């Protein structure tokens, strides 16, 4: 049997699955977004019409799309830095030569990552209940006024961000920890002999050497956070006053509640384009930052 034929036979199952159930639908989504596919077309395909870019233009004029995009960007812009800082802080603590019982702390801090989003979101709904929730009880003990965490349009998104940080920080913590452990200890040794403070060691050794890891992690985290859906679905159903309706929530609502599949596909594609643009921008920015530091040195 020739080697090339064997290779294709080994590849066939995976490529068929990916081709039929991913690649084909992605191309289909582009096509679908150019049609007015809706409940009528679902019942009888003859009702389908080609509408060119009408779905996109209509979306760009809909306040709901812009507010969903705004909420998603809010979630990404606040949630990602907060998550990464928490991850980095936890990794630095775990990496400290002074810390004991590291495997225990590592496992405990990582545990939220493997849990089910839906179940955790249900728990947080009760922890942040206005009347009986622990969060408000603690505020009360501190002499602060209770907050209507999930019922106040100003507080709902911050609560979801807190939840996401709690749920996800352990993942990047493990990656940062591996990055920190790869830094040669001699560098810190030399810095200490030169009398560099802990803060300066962090600023001039740890962060620069962690640079590539930081960039990769931030790109992956941004991509993940743009896909916000299950949290608002369970915790707030997109409310109050649609203050937690994300782009994907809008896509789900438009597509599977109202069966406007054409318009929903346009939402999905716009999200993809935005995510792609943000990733490219981050890579560019990182490259420029790196060449700056190169010039300075």
């Amino acid at each position, binding site marked *: 049997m020739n*080697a*090339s034929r064997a*290779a*294709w036979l*080994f*590849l066939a*199952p*995976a490529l068929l*699955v*990916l081709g039929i*159930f*991913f*690649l*084909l*639908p*992605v191309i*289909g*989504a582009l*096509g*679908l977004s150019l049609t007015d596919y809706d409940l009528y077309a679902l019942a009888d395909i003859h009702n389908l019409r080609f509408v060119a870019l009408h779905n996109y233009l209509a979306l760009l004029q809909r306040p709901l799309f812009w507010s969903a995009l705004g909420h998603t960007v809010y979630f990404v812009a606040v949630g990602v830095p907060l998550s990464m800082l928490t991850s980095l802080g936890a990794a630095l*603590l*775990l990496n*400290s030569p*002074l*810390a004991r019982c590291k495997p225990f*702390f590592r*496992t*405990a*801090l990582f*545990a*939220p990552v*493997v849990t*089910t*989003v*839906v*179940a*955790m979101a*249900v728990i*947080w*709904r*009760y922890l942040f*209940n206005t*009347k*009986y929730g622990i969060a408000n009880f603690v505020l009360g003990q501190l002499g602060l006024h209770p907050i209507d965490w999930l019922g106040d349009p100003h507080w709902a998104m911050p609560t979801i961000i807190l939840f996401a940080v*709690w749920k996800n920080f352990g993942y990047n913590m*493990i990656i940062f920890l591996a990055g920190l452990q790869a830094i040669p200890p001699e560098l810190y040794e030399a810095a200490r002999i030169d009398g560099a403070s*802990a803060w300066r060691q962090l600023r001039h050794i740890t962060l620069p050497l962690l640079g590539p*890891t930081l960039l990769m*992690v931030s790109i*992956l985290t941004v*991509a993940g956070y743009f896909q916000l*859906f*299950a949290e608002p679905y369970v915790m707030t159903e997109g409310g109050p006053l649609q203050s937690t309706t994300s782009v*994907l929530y809008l*896509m789900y609502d438009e597509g*599977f509640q109202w069966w406007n599949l054409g318009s929903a596909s346009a939402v*999905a594609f716009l*999200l*993809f384009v935005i*995510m792609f643009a943000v990733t490219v921008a981050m890579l560019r920015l990182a490259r420029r930052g790196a060449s700056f530091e190169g010039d300075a040195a």
Partner: protein
Amino acid sequence: MSPRLARALIHGLLIGGTLVALFPLLWMLSVSFMQPGAASALPPPLWPAHATLGNYRVLFLRAGMGRYLLNSLLVASAITLLSLACNLMAGYAFAKLRFAGRERLLRVLLGALVIPAQVAMLPLFLLLKTIGLVDSYAGVIVPAMASVYGIFLVRQYTRGIPDELLEAARIDGAGEWRIFSQIVLPLLKPVMVTLAIFSFLAAWNDFMWPLIVLTGQGHYTLPLGLASLAREHAQDSELMMAGSVITVLPVLLLFLAMQRYYLEGLLLGSVKG
């Protein structure tokens, strides 16, 4: 800062962080044993005054939680086994078999990772509707039978196997399938375990796609069942916490038992990629 103070500060922060990370999980477990309504009190009770298994009984006998649990087990196991088979074969081909366009094909697949899965969901729903797989286990399982990430993970690991080993078998006249199944597969055991845990956890925790493709409660997985119960029984915190325990406990235990493989795999797929 003196070393003693630094040590106290580091441990204080670690213990504080651990408490924050674990508190919701411990609270869930505790409340799940409380009498109905007992958690809605001030100050919020941390411990069941009269522990009961009643919430679990209600969930299994009246809310169909047993059905959801079986559905989840079935769907996650099937996805794990089938995706393991597809990804192992493809990953091996990318690592060890020569064919025209190998590197380009791999680049295309990796490039496809930038496309969020949700873009495919609307046409995928229509496709599965046409072939009659909407509201069936297959509708959840089939699209998850292969993953670019899994293929890549296997490829990275398989590249560490020396070519001489495979060449020697070829000279002895072993066929490609025999080389794969009898020589390569046994060596891939660690990455198989890693990949199996990843697929199982991802399939178990998945929410959006099952929510779309499973239209009737009969096929609901645990997260779907829990989400729909949470909408009906918003006030019954004790009942919902028991439901959360049933949903989370299996994956949490799996992780605790296999965490070495899980954490290694997490790094294999990211840093060393």
